[in-house]
Each structure stands twice: as C-alpha cells, then as structure tokens.
C-alpha cells in the first residue's frame, strides 16, 4: 500500500545541513493503523509528509498504491493528494468558516465519486449541535473532531494524523483516540499516526516504526491494548493508568 524506499531528506539549518530523514525504508500494509514514533526532531512528521507529497524526499522512492509519487506532475500530485486525508496537531481549521463550511471545504475543491454527506460525518464525530458555530467557539477536542470530519468527508483511502492529540489534555486525547478507532473500523482506511505519545500508539496501532535522528531504528508489532478507554469514566481511567502496572 505505502512503500518508502531509501528515503532521505535534509534541511539547511544554522549548523549546516540537518538530516531530517536518513535512508528510511518501510512498508505500510493496506487498512492497518501504523504509528511513527520518536522524540521531537526525529523526522517523524517529515517522513509522514512524504506520503502526501507535502515534502519531497531528496533521494529514494515513495510508492503509494502502486504509484511512484516522485514521478507525478503538478496535476498528478493534486489527484494523489485528493484521496489522502490529513489531520493536524493544531487542527488548522479556517476560523472564518463555520464547522459545517469547514467540513464541506474539500468537497468544493475536487469532485469525489462517493463522498459522505456533511450531516453524516458531523453526526459521526458527534457535533450535530455545533454545525453553525465558528472554531473560536469550540474546545480543543471539538476542533479536532471538526478536523477529523473534514478529513473523512471525502472517504479517503489514507488518513494521515500529525500529532493529532498533542495539543489536547489526557481526557480529550482518549476521546479523539476513540473517534479515530471508530473511523478506521467504519471507513476501512489505512491510517498513519505520527506522535510522541506512546499511549496513543498503544491504544490504536497494529505496528509502529521508531525513528531516532532521522533513522529507522526498529519496526515493532504493538501489543494492542483492547480496552477502549473513551467509554470509561474518568475515575476508571485514573484507576487503570495509576493503579495498574
């Protein structure tokens, strides 16, 4: 589904070139939830951005659904990006558009064969009563739900999540994790999550790649924790996190 082969990327920094991604090769299977973890500056976000061509590798290949992303022209890239949803750490909503208008936005940019309806997706993320609100009136968790809804409305083949919970408190993080899991179950996508929060990976992912200073150290099978903590009360979560080993 997603094959990254020998990808490298350097940025020019104050102290000369900085290798953000250094010869990474990995493969993500269709329909899996794949985590990319590492400390900040490890190159996780850059690596994920290769998939939807927000960053282009200096060397190496990125093959998504059989297509070599590096060979695409401008038009081809747009078509490629159209089928990949993305959610962001800071949500990146348009503040002058309502929740509904934000979610509708991708549908105004491209023609989609089989999109979800805006109402359907708003209901899915549980924001029926916030349709007419502006982002400034929402909490962090609600904003991320809008971000998720905006990504899902096109029925993407791949969903990229860039630190989706890093700006949220623990409670809200569990909520968002719940929404993401539900989304993957229902819409059958490949999901790639970049985060430094190990808990999020543990709750969501099948496999995870560990990056350190741009290099792939290991790819591990995640011992999936089965409990869906978004259904638990705050008290139950406290007990689970603090009392269990």
């Amino acid at each position: 589904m997603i094959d990254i082969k020998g990808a490298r990327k350097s940025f020019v920094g104050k102290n000369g070139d900085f290798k953000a991604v250094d010869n990474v090769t990995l493969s993500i299977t269709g329909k899996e939830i794949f985590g990319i973890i590492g400390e900040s500056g490890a190159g996780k976000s850059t690596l994920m951005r290769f998939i939807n061509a927000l960053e282009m590798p200096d060397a190496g290949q990125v093959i998504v659904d059989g297509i070599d992303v590096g060979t695409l022209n401008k038009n081809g890239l747009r078509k490629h990006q159209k089928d990949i949803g993305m959610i962001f750490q800071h949500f990146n909503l348009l503040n002058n558009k309502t929740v509904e208008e934000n979610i509708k936005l991708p549908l105004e940019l491209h023609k989609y064969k089989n999109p979800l309806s805006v109402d359907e997706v708003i209901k899915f993320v549980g924001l029926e009563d916030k349709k007419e609100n502006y982002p400034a009136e929402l909490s962090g968790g609600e904003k991320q739900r809008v971000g998720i809804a905006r990504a899902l409305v096109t029925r993407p083949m791949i969903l990229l999540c860039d630190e989706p919970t890093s700006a949220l408190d623990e409670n809200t993080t569990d909520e968002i994790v719940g929404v993401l899991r539900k989304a993957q179950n229902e819409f059958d996508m490949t999901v790639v999550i970049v985060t430094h929060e190990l808990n999020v990976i543990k709750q969501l992912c099948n496999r995870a790649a560990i990056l350190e200073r741009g290099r792939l150290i290991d790819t591990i099978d995640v011992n999936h924790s089965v409990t869906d903590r978004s259904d638990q009360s705050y008290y139950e979560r406290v007990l689970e996190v603090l009392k269990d080993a």
Partner: protein
Amino acid sequence: MPEAIQIYIERVIEYTPRLVESLYETGIMMVFAMVAAILLGLPLGTLLYLASKGKSLENKLLYQIANIFVNIVRSFPFLLLVVVMQPLIRYFYGRATGDPVAASFPMMLIAIALYARFVEQSLHDVPKGVLETARSMGVTTPQLVWKFLYVEARSSLIIGFTTAFVSFISYSTIMGVVGGGGIGDFAIRYGYQRYETDIMYSAIAVIIVFVIIAQWLGLRLAARLDKR
C-alpha cells in the same frame, strides 16, 4: 456674536452649490481610485504574495517587477506624479487637465500601488497551518486564493482598504492643480486664496466627517466579518 453666526450661515448657504459640486468631483475621483484598488490593486498584492519566496508561484523576476513598480509609485511625491503623468493621460484620455476623470489617472495609480502593499501584508499574516492544509488538500492556486487566503484575511483586507480610502481622500485634495476640482480645491480656492477662512474650515470639517464615517464603517464591517 449672533450677527456673526448669521453672516456665516448666509455665506455657507451661498457657497453650498459649489461645495456640492466639489463633493461630486471628489466622489468621481474616489470611485475611480477605489475601483482601481479592488480590480488591480488586489490582484497585484496577491501576486506579490504568491510570487514571494516559498509561496506557490515563487518567481524572483515577477516579484521584483511588481515590487519595484509599487515602490516607485509610492515613493513619488504625489504632486510630481500628477505632473509626470500628464503626457500619458493626454495620450489615453485626450486631455490631461480640467476635469475629475483626467485627474483620476494618478489617483488610480497610487490606489493600485498602495492597496497592493496592504493586500500583500494581510496575506502574509494568514497562518502557515492554513496554507499547509490547503496544500494537503491538493488545491490549485486560484482555489488557494479564493477559498483559503481571502477567507482568512478578509477582515484585514477590509481594514487595509479603509486605511487606503482615507489616504485617497487626502490625495484627491491635490488634484486642483490640474483642474480636477474636488473638495480640497474648493477649500484652497475659496478659503485660502480669497481669505474666506470660514469657508475653508467648513470644507475641512466636511472632509473630516467623511473620513470618520469611512473609518467607522470599515472597522465595523471588518469586526463583523472577523470570526477568528
């Protein structure tokens, strides 16, 4: 004292038709300047933004040409710009002096350059995250401009336009030198040159009221459209 007030009122009534005519001339110049600012200044400012480093139409040459044009027009002392443009206006319009339409040409040029700079600045204030989101959705450049940049920058675009509008009023007062008329010309001709200072102050008061109303309307509209 009441007698003085009575005389003043009589004089104002006497001058009112000429004042109204001056306002009409100012109005013509302002409309030309505003239309030019929107139809040409907005695209030029957008081009300055898009052609700058790291943006979707990055192009050094294009940026420099637009940038130099804006800088030259803006650094010209306005009175000299009016004079220098005379042959050009004559070529395009047939005459360069004597009516507010001829006088509108330099007004339009300064309006384009001034508003283009405001637009460029407003667009640079749009958060990076918005641009990244747009790119991740695979937008075309026109979609980026209309669906993202203008949406998120709209209140600042309006505030910039309001500031530009107030400057246009100020520029228009110079146009009397080429017979363009207008409220500034009125103030100079009747107030300054004929020592009828009361008429001059009245005309200035009218200008001030216009500026205050324009500023108030602009800020109000911007606040209403700002949901950030």
